[in-house]
């Protein structure tokens, strides 16, 4: 293998320097989009799980159907549908917000399932103990049930959140200038693979701290158990 050739194609300093501003811009778009997706997706997912506690049976069925559809459908299909389909009914949304809406809805569907499973895993005795001391249902939920449910949810939420948020890269399919899109553009202009390596490193820099944060959360909720 020709090492100098490898370096020139994949780790070319000149190319890297030329396209760094574009890639940084793309990284910024990816980061801001990811933060917005994670925030809205998790909040919406939790809200839906809590709503499920009080919905009548038919309401739960409707919600489950909605959630199952979102979990089943490929994100790219929704993105293309919203981006190319909506203008034909007179509604046009920018690529950034199409991605945001799609990924937020999909993340919220998975998050709802995970939060709900967490809520269900809390034994009835926890509710009863708190209610027997005169606490209201809302207080019991906030102080007793949710903190325990969160602990159960963190590992799965982390996986899903990262898995879905990485789909911001699908923005490249509708020409949104996020990190991967900028890297591909740079690749075709330069005829050099270095921008792709830079994008890969960029994704690591963006997502590794998320995993570290999740690990920290799990450890901080050991509650006296040495795991």
């Amino acid at each position, binding site marked *: 293998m020709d090492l100098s050739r490898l370096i020139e194609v994949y780790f070319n300093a000149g190319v890297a320097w030329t396209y760094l501003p574009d890639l940084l811009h793309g990284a910024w778009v990816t980061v801001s989009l990811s933060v917005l997706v994670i925030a809205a997706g998790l909040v919406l997912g939790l809200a839906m799980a809590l709503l499920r506690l009080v919905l009548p049976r038919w309401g739960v069925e409707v919600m489950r159907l909605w959630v199952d559809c979102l979990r089943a459908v490929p994100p790219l299909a929704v993105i293309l549908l919203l981006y190319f389909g909506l203008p034909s009914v007179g509604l046009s949304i920018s690529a950034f917000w199409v991605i945001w809406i799609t990924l937020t809805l999909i993340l919220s569907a998975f998050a709802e399932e995970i939060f709900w499973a967490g809520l269900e895993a809390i034994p009835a005795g926890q509710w009863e*103990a*708190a*209610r*027997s*001391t005169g*606490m209201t249902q809302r207080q019991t939920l906030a*102080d007793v049930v949710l903190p325990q449910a969160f602990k159960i949810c963190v590992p799965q939420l982390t996986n899903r959140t990262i898995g879905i948020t990485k789909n911001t890269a699908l923005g490249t399919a509708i020409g949104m200038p996020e990190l991967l899109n900028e890297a591909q553009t740079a690749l075709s202009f330069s005829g050099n693979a270095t921008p792709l390596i830079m994008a890969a490193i960029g994704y690591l820099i963006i997502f590794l701290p998320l995993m570290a944060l999740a690990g920290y959360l799990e450890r901080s*909720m050991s509650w*006296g158990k040495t795991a």
Partner: protein
Amino acid sequence: MRPILDIQALYKSFGDAEVLKNINLKVGEGEMVFLIGPSGSGKSTLLRCCNRLEEPTSGAIWMDNTNLLAGDTDINRMRQRIGMVFQGFNLYPHMTAEQNVMLALRRVQGKSEAEAREIARRELDRMGLAERFGHYPSQLSGGQQQRVAIARSLALGPRVMLMDEPTSALDPELVGGVLEAMREMKAAGMTMLVVSHEMRFAREAADRVAFMQAGEIVEYGTPAELLAREGGRARAFLGGEH
């Protein structure tokens, strides 16, 4: 003796199954009343009706001139005066012993952090847990957990304590400490309604025993009365080994 808890014509059904039938029971101030009987006889259900963890189908439960079952009764307010201790302790695993006791003091009674902590420490101290304030439930034995749970109830200043098989989930060598705590509560004048299979303890400590069968109280009296009743079903039960 003036009853603290006065249960009148109480019925409870789950679907078609009638699990409590015409229950009438008075628990006087400072009395320790035991509910005994075979499994499925409705003891726990009756106990859980007394703070409406189960909703009775009909009847009345009077406490301090308030019918707990009336539609306009603020049950959350009344529950502060009705402590409950569970078979499975049901401590909050994400909170230390002290925080377990403090939670309702803060949220329900609106006490300051400092005041709640002071009360929590006093109650835990009374339960012999002075060294365990900062321990999580997972770091405590079953007996210690149950005494934290008792402290959690007593901290709110209840007039009556409902105890649902408080020692059934404990290893035999840990039962004594919880029974001792109950003895001390009784000595301090606490009114208690207890579901238990600790027959030796019932014989020795109970003021009254209600023997339940198939959703009804079929025998009622002091332990000595029930033990003396020839041919009574409660006699064989109460005379048992435990």
